């Protein structure tokens, strides 16, 4: 068991190391001379040398990498050239919470609606219900989310004017206001996930419901809802959690698009604007944040397996 955990943690650290090397290389490969960007077009040779030394660009690449990584881990992510603001504050304190709020709301919505829909179509297999939810699952996974967002804006923002179509209100400051502003973005982002969860729940549950332990649970007098939810759904949690974890990246990339559609000041908008403004330090920070988040969630999913399936626990 310890070996399993240690192995997983080591693997994760190695992946993070590779990602950091890649992010560092990104900055190195980025077109444009950072000195020129910092000093403008006209500068003296002396100022150039000073700047080189200040940025540590006169030292060997490996040393530069180590310094950069150490700074990064300590939260010293550099300064934005254009905004003259601290990148850590901008990316981690201001932008990331917006993205996470959006992602959490969307994921919650997807699970709360997707799982019951999937269960329903598994239980009512081969009925009109089932066909309907299959159609939803297919359309939902294929429909481009950014276009869905615009359609929702048009219907609920313009035609009926029911929900706000832009701006972010922090739910930890104003919960209901935050929720209200999150309705359309969260729904937009959650559709893909909801559809995927419906599909997955149905496929796995149909199989699980044919297991002998389901027949046995019915045979000892358990009511239908209990058989399905307590025995059926409990037994498919593992594939469900696995795929949700694996698809978290899709959630993050959907968040980038959703933020742009609804003008939310999140990490996605941050990265997009940084690319347009050639602020490679911010792009780098955004990539590191995204990758770290994703890798850590996957580690958590791996470590959660024994909780989800008793058969994977160490024997006593």
């Amino acid at each position: 068991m310890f070996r399993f955990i240690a192995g997983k943690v080591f693997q994760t650290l190695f992946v993070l190391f590779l990602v950091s090397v890649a992010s560092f290389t990104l900055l190195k490969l980025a077109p444009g001379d950072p000195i020129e960007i910092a000093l403008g077009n006209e500068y003296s040779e002396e100022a150039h040398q000073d700047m080189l030394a200040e940025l540590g660009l006169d030292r060997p690449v490996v040393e530069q990498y180590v310094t950069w990584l150490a700074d990064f881990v300590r939260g010293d992510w550099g300064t934005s050239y254009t905004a003259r603001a601290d990148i850590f504050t901008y990316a981690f304190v201001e932008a990331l919470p917006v993205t996470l709020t959006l992602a959490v709301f969307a994921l919650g919505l997807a699970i709360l609606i997707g799982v019951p829909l999937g269960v329903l179509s598994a239980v009512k297999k081969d009925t009109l219900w089932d066909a309907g939810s299959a159609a939803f699952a297919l359309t939902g996974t294929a429909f481009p989310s950014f276009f869905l967002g615009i359609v929702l804006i048009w219907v609920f923002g313009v035609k009926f004017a029911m929900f706000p179509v832009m701006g972010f209100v922090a739910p930890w400051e104003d919960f209901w206001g935050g929720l209200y502003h999150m309705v359309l973005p969260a729904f937009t982002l959650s559709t893909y996930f909801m559809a995927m969860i419906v599909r997955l729940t149905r496929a796995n549950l149909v199989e699980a419901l044919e297991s002998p332990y389901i027949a046995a649970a019915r045979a000892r007098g358990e009511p239908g809802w209990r058989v399905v939810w307590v025995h059926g759904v409990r037994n498919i949690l593992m594939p469900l959690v696995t795929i949700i974890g694996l698809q978290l990246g899709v959630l993050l990339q959907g968040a980038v698009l959703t933020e742009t559609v609804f003008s939310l000041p999140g990490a996605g908008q941050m990265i997009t604007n940084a690319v347009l403004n050639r602020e490679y330090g911010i792009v780098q920070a955004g990539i590191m944040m995204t990758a770290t988040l994703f890798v850590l969630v996957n580690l958590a999913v791996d470590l959660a397996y024994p909780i989800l399936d008793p058969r994977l626990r160490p024997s006593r």
Partner: protein
Amino acid sequence: MTLLDGATPAPATVPPVRRRRRLTMFVRRPFFTLALLVAAGFVVSAAFAPVFAPWDPTYQDIGAMMAPPATAGHLLGTDSYGQDILSRILFGARYALGIGLGAVAIGALGGLVLGMAAGLAGGRTEWVLMRIVDSILALPSLILAVAFIAILGQGVDKVIYAVGVALIGPFARTVRADVMQVRAQLFVEAAGLMGLAWLTVVWRHILPNVVYPLAVQVTIRISEAILVSSSLSFLGIGVTPPTPDWGLMISEGRAFVSFAPWMAGMPGAALAILLIALSIVGDGIREEFDPKMQRGGS
């Protein structure tokens, strides 16, 4: 004990599986056939865009800016520059399909090389290669493509490279899994024992077994490539205006959604229909030809 052999009732007839499947795939899967026709329709409009399109896709009709659909001469209306939306959608199909195919080709090739290398190397090399694949997969394809765009800059060719490289990860993973599976099968070992050269074994036995599932993967991933490339354009960091790209058109239309909803709606519908059709086609092909999906499965 009275276990009688051959006691289980035999199935009525053993159907000639291969023949029957070939013949009736289109009949048994009406949605697949319909989706295939829709996708083919897009391919045709892309190929013959100059013939079908009533206008030059970048011609700006100053007299008819933001004309609603069904305006004379502009069947689907015009955008804020007075460009004909129908013409732009038809030409846009070229970009969508071209970028999608190009990117998938790069991704599949890169994935094939990386996955084969990982699967065949084994040991430490495999571990390191798979962690590289993991770190590619640690970033969702769009974010990865954004990073490459940051280095490469904008433009149609840049989008193809960026999306293609971003797709290497998933391809590499499936190729490696297939290599492992084939390698575990006896005939490869037997071929090795017969003294065939290593490269011959790879070329004759492993590659054919990997390329087939890879081809199935390609059909499934085309829609992802199209989605990611149009997302890049939607974010404003993909292809540059006035290229008639759907993502770009949707992005431009977003600002006008309250008074000219067709500006985003028309290209959006085109994109959505193409993606849904491609995903039905991909599902059909996967269920029909992927050996892993043959039993049960969604």
